[in-house]
């Protein structure tokens, strides 16, 4: 769509804007974590305190501030999402571009691989790989990225197919623009929208995957991620305990949901702004 109207129509979609706002809040939480609160480490004596002015989200079983954990967890979640997105993008975008643009054996080979990977049950595979590579947050992020690329590649491929049918690609070939320029300038510029939308979705699902893996005990327990906080809470029985230290799991769970919702909203906001077809 058109450059100016994109921003306009995005702003008009209030949900997308809300998502963007939420994403910005979480990103700044993550980036500014050191300024917002001290890294929660060691132990404290004020164990399992409910939310108060001093501890906004209460404290956990080690007497550590849960607000600080959530803030630093945001940093990890962003890191995981970002690394996963990078990995997915580095593999998925070129794979999609090539399979969409090159019609020959290479194209259909890559397409076949994408197809197969899309069919695989991703989370079980992720569990297997995560169990094998061991628990480091970067490993987990890379694994998530490695399994997120097929959907990105598929979106890239479909968009590339559509765009490369368009005459300006042929026109560019005709006036002697090199294939590389065509692929990475002419086509990429035009499929940036749907690719971006998919990237935000990968950002969202990456956090779900990381939390899931951490919850299953395949995460990195030495890093504060939302999944780890939940895992600790679950292990300590905080979820079903009576009386219940609900703050231990509630805020973290909420942040996972908010994070995912915000990225999903952002994605669909961008999507709506890019495809005004929903307006009739």
């Amino acid at each position, binding site marked *: 769509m058109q450059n100016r109207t994109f921003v306009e*129509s995005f702003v*008009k979609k209030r949900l997308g804007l809300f998502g963007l706002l939420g994403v910005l809040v979480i990103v700044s939480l993550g980036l500014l974590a050191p300024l917002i609160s001290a890294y929660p480490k060691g132990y404290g004596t004020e164990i399992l305190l409910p939310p108060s002015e001093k501890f906004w989200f209460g404290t956990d079983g080690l007497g550590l501030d849960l607000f600080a954990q959530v803030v630093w967890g945001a940093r990890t979640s962003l890191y995981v999402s970002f690394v996963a997105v990078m990995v997915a993008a580095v593999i998925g975008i070129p794979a999609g571009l090539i399979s969409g643009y090159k019609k020959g054996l290479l194209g259909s080979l890559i397409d076949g691989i994408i197809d197969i990977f899309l069919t695989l049950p991703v989370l079980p595979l992720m569990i297997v790989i995560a169990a094998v590579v061991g628990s480091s947050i970067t490993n987990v992020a890379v694994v998530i990225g490695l399994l997120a690329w097929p959907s990105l590649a598929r979106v890239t491929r479909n968009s590339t197919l559509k765009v490369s049918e368009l005459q300006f690609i042929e026109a560019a070939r005709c006036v002697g623009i090199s294939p590389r320029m065509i692929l990475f300038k002419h086509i990429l510029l035009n499929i940036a929208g749907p690719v971006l939308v998919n990237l935000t979705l990968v950002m969202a699902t990456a956090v779900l995957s990381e939390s899931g893996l951490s919850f299953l005990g395949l995460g990195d327990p030495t890093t504060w991620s939302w999944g780890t906080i939940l895992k600790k809470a679950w292990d300590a029985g905080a979820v079903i305990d009576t009386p219940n230290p609900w703050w231990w799991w509630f805020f973290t769970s909420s942040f996972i949901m908010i994070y995912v919702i915000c990225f999903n909203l952002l994605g669909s906001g961008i999507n709506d702004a890019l495809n*005004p077809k929903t*307006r*009739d």
Partner: protein
Amino acid sequence: MPKLLEFRNFSMGFKDDDGTVHNLLNNVTFDIEEGRAVGIVGESGCGKSVTNLSVMRLLPRSAVIQGGKIIYRGQNLLKKTDKEMEDIRGKDVAMIFQEPMTSLNPVLNIGFQIGEVLKKHRPDMNEEQIKNAVTNQLELVGIPSPEKRLKQYPHQFSGGMRQRVMIAMATICQPDLLIADEPTTALDVTIQAQVLDIMNRLKDKGSLMLVTHNLGVVAEICNDVVVMYAGTVVEKGSMDEIFDNPCHPYTKGLMAAIPTLSSGKEELYSIPGTVPLSNKFSAGCRFADRCSQYFDLCQDKVPPTRQLSASHYVQCWLDFERRE
């Protein structure tokens, strides 16, 4: 001759995202007399298709009717209930669409899709009768071995054949008014000839409202012509009047700009600029900024509609010779 359909100062527009309504059709007024074929001519963006859909009341959701009437056999269609409209559609007024590729449902066989019209409007007919009627209708529009074709799906038909199916579907209830929206635009010339031939044979059974940008097609089929520009009727009259004595600068320009088999090699007349978008219409004559005979008044005030003969009208500030 009795009037079958009358557009009376019909105005409508489209709502954009902000809810602002941009006027497209402005005071559209013309008649279709019984048994006559009217061609509505204009370039893209002049509101031809919207005019069609307004008759059928099948406008998209963002369309807003701003005023006027569409009178069919003395009754304002805009005032009909949905239920009443359903009874009119397909039976009294039927429509052929531009894209035969997309206008047929890909997952239903064409026997069903044609028979459906009868199922709706002829409750007296049983399955067997419907099937026979459909077979006959397919034969009528020149589809070979119709018995076999009934069971087939749209993707098994060629473009020309699909348009024949569309025609069969639209005419099976013998509607009083057949609306055809660019029925041959998507077709090859030799196929277009076939379809025009069929339409010529069928048009005598009722009235025809043919929308097209192809003046040749109009000349081939129509009795009357309505020339539209940017949502306004700039000129209307009988075919001879419009083709032999075009008055409006736009009509004249249009005629002169088209190379024909009989035209020579001299430079073509061309109208400068392009049809404006609906949110950029000028307050006065919408053709003003492209007009070769433009003067100040054109820009500011909507020109009057002048009657040049019993059937010939033109909406323009210029003075024309009235003849009978």
